[in-house]
């Protein structure tokens, strides 16, 4: 799941417009960013499900540190503190929650490969509800997330643009076309979300 995480960040932006979008987009993928680093260091990896060529949902992901419950909590808390310092408590909590939302969404789709403790210490049972075993349902769940996210982002962006244009008009300033900018950014958001989902589902790239 990649697009679904971005979709969730767009939903949060629609509800909490004061949090910068770049920070939400980075936060929602932070566990995977660390996964890529550990993958390049040969510490974490993924293998195709036997009998499949890999692709959408057909992977067992050995992300024993970044995607362990405790590992995800630690990363979320560090991100929360990093955002709390410049942006205050509320925004820090939002960033921390968005980082941890990655683990929650992955828990729904992963095929029982997410450990509780980093490095699967103690050999405890691994977690994952395995929605990826039903690819079309997983696809629909991600599609729902990106559609709601794109709509909520569009709604918030247009509302912000209207307020900005009213403020400019009140101050006697020349209108700067905020609504057009909001529409263009919303369209790009939707195109990127849908493109990411389709590329992931059909194994493009």
């Amino acid at each position, binding site marked *: 799941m990649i697009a679904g995480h971005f979709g969730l960040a767009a939903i949060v932006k629609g509800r909490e417009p*004061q949090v910068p*979008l*770049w920070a939400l987009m980075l936060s929602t993928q932070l566990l995977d960013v660390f996964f890529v680093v550990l993958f390049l260091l040969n510490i974490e990896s993924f293998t195709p499900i036997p009998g499949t060529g890999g692709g959408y949902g057909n992977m067992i992901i050995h992300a024993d540190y970044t995607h362990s419950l405790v590992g995800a909590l630690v990363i979320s808390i560090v991100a929360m503190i990093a955002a709390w310092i410049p942006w*205050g408590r509320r925004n820090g909590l939002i960033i921390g929650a968005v980082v941890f939302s990655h683990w929650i969404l992955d828990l729904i789709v992963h095929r029982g490969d997410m450990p509780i403790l980093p490095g699967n210490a103690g050999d405890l049972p691994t977690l994952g509800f395995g929605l990826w075993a039903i690819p079309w349902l997983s696809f629909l769940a991600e599609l729902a997330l990106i559609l709601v996210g794109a709509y909520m982002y569009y709604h918030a962006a247009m509302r912000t643009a209207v307020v900005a244009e009213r403020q400019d008009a009140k101050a006697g300033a020349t209108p700067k076309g905020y609504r057009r900018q909001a529409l263009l950014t919303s369209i790009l958001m939707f195109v990127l979300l849908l493109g990411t989902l389709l*590329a992931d589902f059909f194994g493009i*790239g």
Partner: protein
Amino acid sequence: MSFILELLLFIVVLGWLDSRLRWPKPNDKSQRYVSIAERSKSLGRSDDGQ
């Protein structure tokens, strides 16, 4: 590889376009969360002042 490209598109390109909209800033007072307890307190204060 595509993940890194997607990440860059969402964070750098979309983030830059988004920053050109006049969103409220993270530290704007008007966006600060005010708890119900805090609201009750400030209402109480204004009542006292009247």
